C-alpha cells in the first residue's frame, strides 16, 4: 500500500512535531515517521530561546535582546534566515515569528503534561541538576520557583536515597556558592536525603521509577507526608527536587505539594535520561495526533526520489517492512549527530538521507572538512566547537539549498537541529530554534501545498 499524505514529516523531535502539528491543524493530511527519539526527549525541561552570544560570558537579559543582536551579528543564523525580507534582514520579522511560535506552543502545551511558563521579555535563571544556573526562557510548570532568589528564602534541597543523579548536599552548596559569588546569597541553604523507594530498595533508583511512583496515589501520599515534615522541621520556603515529580502528573503534583507543605516545591533541570524531556516528547506526540496527524514510529527514511525540482517519493524502512511515501511536500527534521540527521567520518560531514549539501559554521562546504579541525583543544569554552554549527544550509523559505544557493526541491523544507549556523549548547538556543523553524516550516508547507510557493 502506498501512502500519499499531503505532508510527510521526517523526524519527530520538537522541530518535526511542531511543523507537522501546524500543518495538520490547517487541515492537511500529515504523516510523520521517526526512527527513534532524539535530542528533544533528552532535553532538560527548559525551552531555551537564546541565552548567550557565542563567545560571550555574560548572558542576555532577554531573548528579544538576543534576537536583535544575533540578527545583526550572525546573518546566517536560523533566527536571521527567517527574518529575510526583500533581500535584507528584518529583526522584527524574526521576533514576530518567535513570538507567534512560542505563544502557539504555550497554548498547545497548556493543560498538557509539559505545560510551560515564561515569556520572551526575560531569561530565567534556572537551577540545574548540579546546582548551577542557566539562562533559559520557558520551563515546565513543575519547575517554576518564584521567590527562590529573594534574600529571605530558605531553600531545602531534597535528594532521594539511592538516586545517584542528584546529590542534594553538593547541589545545595553549588547553589549557595553561585549566589554568594553574585552577593545575593540566601541566609541559609538546607539539604536532606529522604527515603522513597518505589520498588522497596534504596539503591539503583532511576528518575523514571520515582516519577512513575509519584504518578500513583500511594507515591504522592508518601512524598507529601515526608516533605510536610521536612518543611515543618526546617522552616524551608522552597523545596528543590530532582526532576522526578511524575510523568503524567508532575505539574499537579508540584502544585499539590506546594499547597500541602506551604513551601514552593519544584524540580531542577534534568540531565538525561530526562523525565521532563520525556514529558515534552510525549506531550508533543499527543498534540500532533490530537490534531489529526498520523505518527508512525520505528520507521527510518532511507532515500528520496527527486523529479526535477520536486521530491516525489520517500522510501522508508521499518524493522522488517519497507514503505513508500509520495507526499505533496516534506519537512526534514532529522536532528544533528545525536539523531543522525548528520553523519561524520574522519573526512567530512554528510546528510545521509537525501545527500544534501552540508556546510561548516562559516558556511563552507563541509563534505570534506575533517571534523577534528573544527574543534578546539579545550572542550569547554564560551565559544563552543564549530563542528556543532555544521548542518544543512537553507533559503529564507527554509528549503535546503545546493551549492548555488538554489532550493534542492521546491517542496522540501528543513527544520530544527539539522539546519546549519548555530550551536545550541553554546548559545542555549536548542529547542527555541527547533520550535521556531518547525513553526515556520509548518507555515511554509501549508503555503506550498495550498498556493504553491
Amino acid at each position, binding site marked *: *500500500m502506498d501512502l500519499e499524505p499531503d505532508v510527510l514529516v521526517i523526524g519527530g523531535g520538537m522541530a518535526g512535531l511542531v511543523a507537522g502539528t501546524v500543518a495538520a491543524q490547517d487541515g492537511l493530511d500529515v504523516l510523520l515517521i521517526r*526512527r*527513534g*527519539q*532524539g*535530542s528533544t*526527549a*533528552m532535553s532538560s525541561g527548559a525551552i531555551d530561546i537564546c541565552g548567550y552570544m557565542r563567545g560571550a560570558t555574560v548572558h542576555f537579559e532577554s531573548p528579544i535582546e538576543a534576537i536583535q543582536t544575533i540578527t545583526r551579528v550572525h546573518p546566517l543564523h536560523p533566527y536571521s534566515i527567517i527574518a529575510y525580507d526583500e533581500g535584507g534582514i528584518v529583526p522584527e520579522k524574526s521576533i514576530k515569528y518567535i513570538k507567534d511560535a512560542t505563544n502557539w506552543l504555550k497554548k498547545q502545551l497548556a493543560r498538557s503534561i509539559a505545560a510551560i511558563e515564561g515569556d520572551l521579555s526575560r531569561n530565567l535563571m534556572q537551577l540545574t541538576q548540579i546546582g548551577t544556573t542557566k539562562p533559559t526562557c520557558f520551563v515546565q510548570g513543575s519547575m517554576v520557583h518564584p521567590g527562590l532568589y529573594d534574600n529571605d528564602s530558605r531553600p531545602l534541597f531534597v535528594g532521594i536515597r539511592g538516586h545517584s543523579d542528584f546529590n542534594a548536599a553538593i547541589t545545595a552548596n553549588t547553589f549557595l556558592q553561585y549566589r554568594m559569588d553574585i552577593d545575593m546569597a540566601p541566609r541559609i541553604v538546607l539539604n536532606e536525603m529522604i527515603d522513597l523507594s*518505589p*520498588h522497596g*530498595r534504596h*539503591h*539503583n*533508583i*532511576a528518575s*523514571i*521509577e520515582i516519577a*512513575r511512583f509519584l504518578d500513583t496515589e500511594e507515591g504522592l501520599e508518601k512524598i507529601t507526608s515526608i516533605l510536610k515534615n521536612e518543611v515543618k522541621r526546617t522552616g524551608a520556603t522552597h523545596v528543590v527536587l530532582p526532576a522526578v515529580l511524575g510523568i503524567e502528573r508532575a505539574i499537579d503534583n508540584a502544585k499539590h505539594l506546594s499547597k500541602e507543605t506551604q513551601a514552593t516545591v519544584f524540580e531542577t533541570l534534568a540531565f*538525561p*535520561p*530526562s*523525565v521532563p524531556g*520525556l514529558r515534552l516528547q510525549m506531550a508533543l506526540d499527543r498534540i500532533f495526533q490530537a490534531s489529526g496527524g*498520523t505518527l*508512525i*514510529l*520505528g*520507521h*527510518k527514511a532511507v532515500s528520496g526520489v527527486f523529479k526535477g525540482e520536486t521530491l516525489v517519493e520517500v522510501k522508508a524502512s*521499518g*524493522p*522488517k*517492512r519497507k*514503505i513508500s511515501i509520495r507526499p505533496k511536500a516534506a519537512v526534514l527534521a532529522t*536532528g544533528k549527530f*545525536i*539523531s*543522525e540527521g548528520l553523519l561524520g567520518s574522519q573526512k567530512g560531514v554528510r546528510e545521509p538521507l537525501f545527500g544534501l549539501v552540508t556546510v561548516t559554521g562559516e558556511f563552507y562546504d563541509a563534505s570534506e572538512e575533517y571534523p577534528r579541525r573544527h574543534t578546539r583543544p579545550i572542550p569547554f569554552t564560551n565559544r563552543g566547537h564549530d563542528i556543532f554549527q555544521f548542518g544543512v544550509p537553507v533559503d529564507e523559505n527554509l528549503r535546503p539549498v545546493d551549492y548555488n544557493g538554489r532550493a534542492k526541491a521546491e517542496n522540501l523544507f528543513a527544520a530544527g537541529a539539522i539546519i546549519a549556523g548555530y550551536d545550541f549548547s553554546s548559545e542555549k538556543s536548542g529547542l527555541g530554534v527547533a520550535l521556531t523553524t518547525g513553526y515556520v516550516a509548518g507555515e511554509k508547507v501549508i503555503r506550498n501545498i495550498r498556493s504553491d510557493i
Partner: protein
Amino acid sequence: MSEEEAYEFVMNTLRKEAIVPLDHEEIDIVRSIEKCMNCGSCINLCPVVAAVGMDTFSGPRSIAIELSRSTPEFWTSANMIFLCTGCGTCRENCPHDVDIPMIVNLLRWVIYKQRPELIPKQLLEVQNRLEKHSLAFEPWEDIEDKNESRDVRIEQLGIPFVKDRKGVKAEVLFYPGCQAEERAQEVREAAKYILVRLEVDYCLLSEMSCCGLPARLSGAKELARDLEKKLISKIKETGAKKIVTTCAGCTSSLSEIIENSGVNVKVYHIIEYLMEEVDEAKLKLLFERGRGTSESTITIHDPCHLIRHTSRMIMYYASIILRMIPGVSIKPSSAFDSCCGGGGMVGYHSPHVASRVTEVNVKAIERTGAERVVTPCPLCTTQLENELFRSNVVVDVDDFTVFIAQQIARGER
C-alpha cells in the same frame, strides 16, 4: 602437535578463559550495539524496568553499554538478561537503532556455552520439547482429545469448521504457529475459515514445525537454526509463494528467516494479507452481511512482534480493517502498544515479572470501559486473558483473526 590437535588445544584454552569465539555474524551484532552513547532514553521506556525497577533489571542501556562489551564476561549478565521480554521498545526509541533484542539472544546463547547452570531450567525444558517435537508445546497425546477441544472452542465462538487442506500444493501457505496449532486452536480454525470464505487457494504444512523463535529467545542458537532449516524445507515442499500467519511472533520470525534463506516467498500477517491482497469491497461485503447482528466496544492491543519487530504499519492496517466492521466502536487504550509481558520467554521462569509488566495494560484496558480487547496474536491474547482474569477485570479478549471470523460467520447465518 598436529593441526587438529593444535586447534583442539586452542579451543580448550579459549574455553578455560571463557572466550566463546563469535562468528562473523555475531560479531556484527555486537558491533551494531557499539553505537550506544549512554543517553539512557531507553531506560525511560523499557516496560520491564517500569515493572520491577532498574535494580532487578538494569535495562536496555546497561545491556548495550555494559553487559555486551566483553564476551568472556557475558555469563555475569545471567541474573538480568533473561528478564528482557524482547519487546523492542528500546530499539524503537533509540536514536541510534541499537538492537537490544538481538544482543539479548546472543548473550543468552553465550551464557549457554559458558555457564549453562545459570540458565533458568524452564528454558531448558522448552528446548527439550522443541528438540523432541519441533513444537514449543507438548503435543496432545490423543488426537481425538485435541479435536474435541477444538470443536468445543469454535462452537462457543461461533466459527464454522472447515476441513484442513494438507499435503496439497497451493499459492498460499497458512502457518498457524505453535500456539494456534496446539493451544489456541480457534485461531487456526478462524484463519482457515476466513481464507476459505475469501476463496483463497491455501494449504497447511503436512506437519506443523516451529519457526525456531522460542529456541532463539532462550539462547539455543543451534537448535533454532535446525528448526529454521527444517521449516524452510517444509515450506518449499508446499510450493507456496505466500505465507500467511496469525501469530505476531511468527510474522517477524518468518520474515527474518525467509529473508535470510533467500527463498522467494512473501510473509504476511493475516492483517497485511487482508489489506494488501484482498479486494477491499469483498471484505466489506462479508462484514456488511453481518450488520446488525452484533455491537461491540473494543480496545486494541498492539503486539510487540508486529509493531516493533515487523512494522507499525500493520496495526495501522488493523485499525482500518476493524473500522470496516459495522457495529464496532473502538476505544483506544493508553497502553495500546505497551508490551504485554508475554514475550522473551520471561513468563516461563519469572511469571511474576511478566505479570507485573502486564499490569500496565490491565489498568489501561480497564479504564477504557471497552467490552473486549482485540489483539492479533494468540500469545498476547493468552497473557492478557490470564492477567485480566487474575485482576478480576471482566473484559473479554479476542484474537483478531477470531474476531474477524466471527463477524464473517454472522453474515453467513
